[in-house]
């Protein structure tokens, strides 16, 4: 899996690509930790290019979300493909995360 990450204002935007599982979850965890170390309290994970997540990937996102909320920020998800959306619905993680249709909406929700 590849991952792009950029900064929009003071919001870290991560874009994992492909299968998001135990093998590459550490890369996402590192990027989120890096954002946290840079005092960025808000993050967006754009899952538009992800076709599968396993439980380790979900745990990584949950941890990232908790860290953001500890800093008074949040972690938003956007652009979920249908199979990924189903995973979030089945695990009810759609109740834990703020999930948006588009990256623009996710950004806007931060007041950006």
């Amino acid at each position, binding site marked *: 899996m590849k991952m792009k990450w950029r900064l929009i204002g003071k919001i870290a935007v991560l874009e994992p690509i492909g299968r998001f599982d135990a093998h590459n979850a550490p890369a996402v965890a590192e990027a989120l930790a890096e954002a946290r170390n840079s005092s960025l309290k808000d993050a967006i994970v754009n899952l538009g290019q992800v076709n599968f997540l396993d*439980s380790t990937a979900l745990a990584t996102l949950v941890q990232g979300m908790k860290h953001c909320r500890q800093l008074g920020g949040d972690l938003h998800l956007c652009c979920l493909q249908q199979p990924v959306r189903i995973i979030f619905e089945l*695990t009810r993680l759609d*109740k*834990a995360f703020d999930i948006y249709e588009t990256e623009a909406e996710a950004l806007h929700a931060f007041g950006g």
Partner: protein
Amino acid sequence: MPSAGEAAPAGLAAVLTMRRPQVEAMAQAWLLAGARAFGITSHGRVLAAWPGPEAQPAAQIEPGALGGLAAEVTADGWLLGELRVTGMAGAVAAARLAADATLLAQLAQQERELDAVAEELVGAQDQILALYDLARAARSHLNLPETLSAPACETARLVATDGAAVLFVPDDGEPAWGWHGPGVPELATLLAAFRRLPADGRELILAGSEASHGCNLLLIPVHVRQHTAAALALARGPGCTAFASPEIKLAHAIAEQSGAQIENVLLYEETLARARLDTEMALARTVQMRLLPARAPAITGLQLAGRATPALQVGGDFYDFMPAQAGRTCTFAVGDVSGKGLSAALVMAMARSVLRSKASGGATPAQMLDSANAELYDDLTEVAMFATVFVGQYDPVARTLRYANAGHSPVIYCPPDGPARLLEADGTALGVLPFSLCQDHELPFGPAALLVIGTDGFSEASNAAGAMYGYERLLRLVESLAVQPAAAIADEIYLAVGAFAAGQLQADDQTLIVAKGVLS
């Protein structure tokens, strides 16, 4: 090798011994030509004289007795001795004697060269034997200290040094070394020299003020797994001769050998560690399997079957049948901790215990999950994990099933008249949110009602083409198996999913409970 000063007198003596016929012929030629006597002297001693001494040995003849012509025998500027002829005179005789002296000098030179070659051969043979010994002894060295000391000892024996050492500087660990002899520098000095080894694999020679205490230090890189991770060090005290090329070559050969030995020991140690880990994991698996219920409880009107197969030796899935509560209900649970392997197994053991402790006191499934989440949330946050859990509670009197689902899937309910459907979770997994969203739900659970609580190891099992088994197939499978007893349904699900993913490694833990309503 003896110095030239010592070689000079031995030179002519050796020629006399080894080339006696040639020297004899030379002497006889002079006698035939009319000489009264022919002799060879060296440093004031007569080594041989012709005609042969009849009454006294040559050594007792005074050199003065061999008067007349004389010619010096010299080699490389060294005076080896003289040829003397009595009873001859004239330029022709003098020139002939000079020519004989030159011939004798050449013979002496050849003898010396032969000696040197023979000596080198013997030396090389010794070194080959020593290397062979070293290689053979290495097989019995199974620990690092011995493996480092042995070549140091051998080097000190084969090369004239005041001390030798082998140091091993692994990337991820403390340096280790073995040494022999009184003149070995301190470890810190050797480590400093080690860092100065040239990158091209050549040796490092430090002399005088560059090395500690003014000694000569020769450091040969030792390659361990394609890296310069060790070195062979030879030290000579101040004022000693520098290390010569044959010694450096020999040291390289020993260094090469040492590298192979260190690799052997590392491999041995790794194999040992792996074997220990395997044993530990096998024990952990036994422990984990014992945490799972040995058998399903006998409940009036309900068949229960539970199975678990971790993907690795141990896993993060669990299922449990809680002790029957005073009164009537039977509680059971299936859980899946995120991740797999040992870390998931540790969290699984913790989650199982906490959940078990919440089963007493008449708590409903949602209450159990609520208080388990409160207790586990901080720990789960600490280790960045979560646990999906389904809890079911069967009431044999009302013949109903009450359940709550914290993010767990797949849970499949198949009423007596079908079709099978997924019971979706309403709460998030334990450890995701500090509060619980789970609510209790109730299903009629009379005869032929079927509930299969699996883990994602079934739905996400993939075949060779990368396709997942998926929920649709699972639903249809459960429907097709619904008439069978609970234990058979459990077995058939494993078989069907296993057949689908034939040849693929089981990627995730597979655990399930099958509950089926039967006539009481």
